[in-house]
C-alpha cells in the first residue's frame, strides 16, 4: 500500500504531468504523419530523458507511445493512409465513414475507444499480469505459425466481392514478402542483386503507397467535378463526440476486441497491426450489424481502434513481468528502465513495486491525456477535409513520399512508395481488393519462418501443428472463421 502511494505521488507530480502532455502532443503529431512510427518517436526522445528524473522521462515516453498508436487512426480515417501500421484495420471502416460524411464521428470513436482499449490493457497488466505472460511464453514456432494462419484467415473477409480475386491479391502480397534473405538459411531470394532488397521490401512504404498514394491517383482519375463538390460539403459535416447510447452500443464489440488485443500484444513478436486486423474480423461474430463491416461500420472501427491500444497493455505485461521486449517500442522502454536503474522482470515486482505502480498510473494518465487532447485535435483536423480537393491530394502525395523516405532515409523506399502507389491505382481500377495484400505482407513472413522453425525443431514432422493444443485450437478457429466468412459472402 505504501508503495502504491509512493508510485502514485511520483506519477502525479506536476512536472511528470507536464512531460506527459508534451509526450502526448508529440506522439499525436508523429502518429498522424504517415511513415513516422511510435518506435521512431520513442527512440528520438529517449536520449532526452537522460536529463530527466525517472517519473518525468517515463511520463514523456509513455505519453508518446499511447498517443502515437491512437493518432495513427486519425490519418487512417481521414485520408485512408494508416499513420502507423497499428491502424491498418481502421482504414477499412474509418475511411468509408469519412466518405459517408461521418469523419467527425469516426474520429470521435477513435479517441474514445482507443482510450477504452488502453485502459483495459492496463487493467489486464494489474489483474492477470503473470499468468498472461506465462501464457505468452507457451507460444513456440508451431503456435506462431498457427497464429499467422489464423490472422491470414481474415483474408476471406477483406476480399470484397470476388473471393478468387482477394485470394490472388493475398498471394501476390505473400510473394512480395519472400523477397530478401530467407529467414532460416539466409539465402538470397529475388533480390536482383540489390543491396536494398536483402532485408526485403519494407512494409511501411508499401502500405503507404497502396493506401495513400494509390487512393489519390484513383480519385484524380475517377472524380468528376460534381463528386468533388459533394465530397467538400461532406467534409464539413459531422459531430465529433459520440453519444452515450452509441458508446454503449459498441461496448460488447469493444470489450471482445480488447481481449484479443491484450493477448496478441502479450505475445512477443505479434503487435498492434495484427491485433487490429484479427479483432476487426473476429468481432463481427458478436456485432449487431456484421454485414456493415468494411462499408463504414461504427462497430468495425471501434473494434480495430480498441484492439490496437489494448495491445500496449499486453506488450507491457510481457516486458515488465519477464523482461522480454515484445516489439521495438518495448525494447526501447527496457533501455529506459535500465537507465533508471530498474531491471524489468519478476524481481522488479518484488523490489520496486513503487516503480511498477508508477508506470501503471502513468499509462492510465496517458490515456486520459490523449482523450482530452484527442477531441480537440480531431475537431481541428476534420477542417482539413474542407480544404480544396486539389490541395488535399497534393498534401497526401507529398506526406506519403517524404514520410516513407523518413523511416530509413532511403531513396529506394521512395521508389517503392511510387511503385506501390501506381500498383494501388491499377488494382483499384480493375477492382482488386488491397486488404489481402497488406495482410499477407505482415503475416506471410511470420507464417513461413515459424513453419520452417517448427519443422526444424520437430525434425520434419508436420504433426507438431496438430498435437500442440494452442496450435490446434488456432487452426480450428481459422477453419471456422474462413467458413463463417464464406457463408456470410454467399448470403449477400
Amino acid at each position, binding site marked *: 500500500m505504501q508503495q502504491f502511494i509512493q508510485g502514485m505521488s511520483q506519477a502525479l507530480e506536476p512536472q511528470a504531468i507536464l512531460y506527459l502532455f508534451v509526450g502526448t502532443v508529440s506522439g499525436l503529431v508523429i502518429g498522424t504523419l504517415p511513415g513516422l512510427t511510435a518506435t521512431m518517436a520513442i527512440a528520438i526522445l529517449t*536520449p532526452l530523458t537522460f536529463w530527466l528524473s525517472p517519473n518525468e522521462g517515463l511520463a514523456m515516453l509513455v505519453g508518446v507511445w499511447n498517443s502515437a498508436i491512437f493518432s495513427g487512426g486519425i490519418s487512417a480515417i481521414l485520408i485512408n493512409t494508416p499513420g502507423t501500421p497499428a491502424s491498418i484495420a481502421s482504414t477499412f471502416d474509418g475511411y468509408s465513414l469519412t466518405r459517408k460524411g461521418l469523419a467527425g464521428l469516426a474520429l470521435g470513436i477513435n479517441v474514445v475507444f482507443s482510450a477504452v482499449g488502453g485502459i483495459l490493457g492496463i487493467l489486464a497488466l494489474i489483474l492477470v499480469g503473470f499468468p498472461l505472460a506465462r501464457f505468452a511464453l507457451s*507460444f513456440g514456432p508451431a503456435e506462431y505459425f498457427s497464429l499467422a494462419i489464423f490472422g491470414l484467415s481474415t483474408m476471406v473477409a477483406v476480399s470484397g466481392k470476388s473471393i478468387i480475386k482477394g485470394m490472388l491479391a493475398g498471394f501476390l502480397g505473400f510473394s512480395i514478402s519472400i523477397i530478401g534473405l530467407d529467414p532460416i538459411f539466409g539465402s538470397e531470394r529475388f533480390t536482383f542483386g540489390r543491396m536494398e532488397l536483402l532485408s526485403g521490401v519494407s512494409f511501411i512504404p508499401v502500405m503507404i503507397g497502396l493506401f495513400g498514394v494509390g487512393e489519390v491517383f484513383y480519385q484524380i482519375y475517377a472524380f468528376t467535378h460534381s463528386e468533388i463538390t459533394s465530397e467538400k460539403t461532406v467534409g464539413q459535416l459531422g459531430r465529433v463526440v459520440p453519444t452515450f447510447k452509441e458508446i454503449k452500443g459498441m461496448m460488447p464489440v469493444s470489450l471482445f476486441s480488447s481481449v484479443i488485443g491484450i493477448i496478441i500484444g502479450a505475445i512477443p513478436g505479434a503487435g498492434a497491426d495484427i491485433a487490429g486486423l484479427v479483432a476487426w474480423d473476429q468481432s463481427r461474430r458478436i456485432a449487431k450489424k456484421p454485414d456493415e463491416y468494411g462499408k463504414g461500420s461504427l462497430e468495425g472501427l471501434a473494434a480495430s481502434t480498441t484492439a490496437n491500444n489494448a495491445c500496449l497493455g499486453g506488450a507491457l505485461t510481457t516486458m515488465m513481468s519477464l*523482461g522480454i521486449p515484445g516489439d521495438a517500442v518495448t525494447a526501447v522502454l527496457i533501455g529506459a528502465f535500465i537507465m533508471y*536503474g530498474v*531491471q524489468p522482470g519478476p524481481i522488479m515486482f518484488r523490489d520496486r513495486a513503487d516503480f511498477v505502480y508508477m508506470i501503471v498510473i502513468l499509462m492510465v494518465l496517458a490515456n486520459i491525456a490523449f482523450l482530452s487532447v484527442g477531441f480537440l485535435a480531431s475537431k481541428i483536423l476534420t477542417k482539413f477535409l474542407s480544404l480544396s480537393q486539389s490541395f488535399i491530394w497534393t498534401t497526401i502525395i507529398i506526406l506519403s513520399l517524404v514520410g516513407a523516405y523518413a523511416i530509413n*532515409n532511403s531513396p529506394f523506399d521512395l521508389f517503392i512508395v511510387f511503385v506501390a502507389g501506381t500498383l494501388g491505382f491499377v488494382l483499384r481500377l480493375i477492382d482488386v481488393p488491397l486488404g489481402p495484400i497488406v495482410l499477407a505482407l505482415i503475416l506471410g513472413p511470420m507464417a513461413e519462418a515459424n513453419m520452417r522453425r517448427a519443422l526444424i*525443431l520437430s525434425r520434419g514432422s508436420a504433426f507438431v501443428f496438430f498435437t500442440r493444443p494452442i496450435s490446434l485450437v488456432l487452426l480450428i478457429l481459422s477453419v471456422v472463421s474462413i467458413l463463417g466468412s464464406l457463408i456470410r459472402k454467399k448470403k449477400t
Partner: protein
Amino acid sequence: MKRFLVGFLVIMVVMLFAAYPDKPITFIIQAAPGGASDMVSRTITSIAQEILKVPITCTNITGASGAIAMKRLQTSKPDGYTMGYVPVELSMVKALGFADFGPEDFDLLMRIMVIPAAVTVRADSQWKTIQDFIDYVKSHPGTVTVGNSGPGSIWHIAALSLEKAIGTKLVHVPFDGAAPAVAALMGGHITAVTVSPTEVKSGVESGQLRILAVMSEERSPLFPQVPTLKELGYDVTVAAWGGLALPKGIDPQIYKILAEAFKKAYDSEAFQKFLSDRGMTPAYLDGENFKAFAVSQFNMFMELIPKALGK
C-alpha cells in the same frame, strides 16, 4: 610583406580548422531504433554534442546487416560532418556476400565496447556447468537445439564456433533477433541460446535461466562467477563489438578534434554507467589499434563464414 602574408595565411588556416565543427554533424546508425547499436550511438552522441558544441543528429538506416548504412557512410564526403557507428558486421558483410567493403575502407575513430556470446540454458535443466552441457551434447549429437538471432548473425557464428570447438553437431534455430530466441528458451521451445549476457540478464536474475559460459577472453563483468570457455580449454572467443567510423580520407586535424571529443564523452561517468548497466564491456581502442583489431576480425570471418554457412 611575405612574412606577413604567410602569417596571415597560417592564422586563416588555423581559424578555419578551429572553426570545425560549425554546423550539425550527421551520425548514421546502421540498426533500427531500440537495439544495442542505436542506444550506444544515441547516448554517446548526446554527450559528445555538448563537448563539440554543435548538434549531432542521429539517423537510422537499416538493412542487409547494416551494410546499407555503412556503404552510405563510406561514400559520404570525408569532411567530418558525417560519421557513423560500425558494429562487428563491418568485418562480416563482405564474407556474407552483402557488400564489397571491409574495415580498411574507413577511417576508424575508436572502439567503444565488446559484448561476448554466452551459452545460456533454462535454470530447471539438468546442466549445472558448461562441462555437463558439453558432455551431454557430445553424447547426443544432432538433438540439442540452439537458438540464435538470425542466419549469418554474430550469435549464429558463436553457435557454429562452439560446435566446431567441441566437435559435435548442434541443431541451429535462427530467430528474428535475440529477444525472440530468449523468449523461446524461456518457454522451453529450444534447449539453449548463444546470445549476449545482456539479453538474458533479466531471465538469469529472476532464476529462470542459467548462464553456463561466456565466449570471451576475460570473464563478463556482469556475471563474474561464470567461467569463460577459454579457461576450460576450448579456444572459442566470439564477441560482438562496436565503434565509431568516418569516411576514408578525413583531414587529420578534424580527426583529432573528433577523436578527443568522443574520447571525453566515452570517459564521462554517464556513458560508463550506461555501458555497465547494459552489460557491455567498455573496450576503448584508439583508431589505429581499432583498425588492426577490425582487420584481424575481418580475416577471421573471411575464413570462417564461407566454411560455416556453405556460402
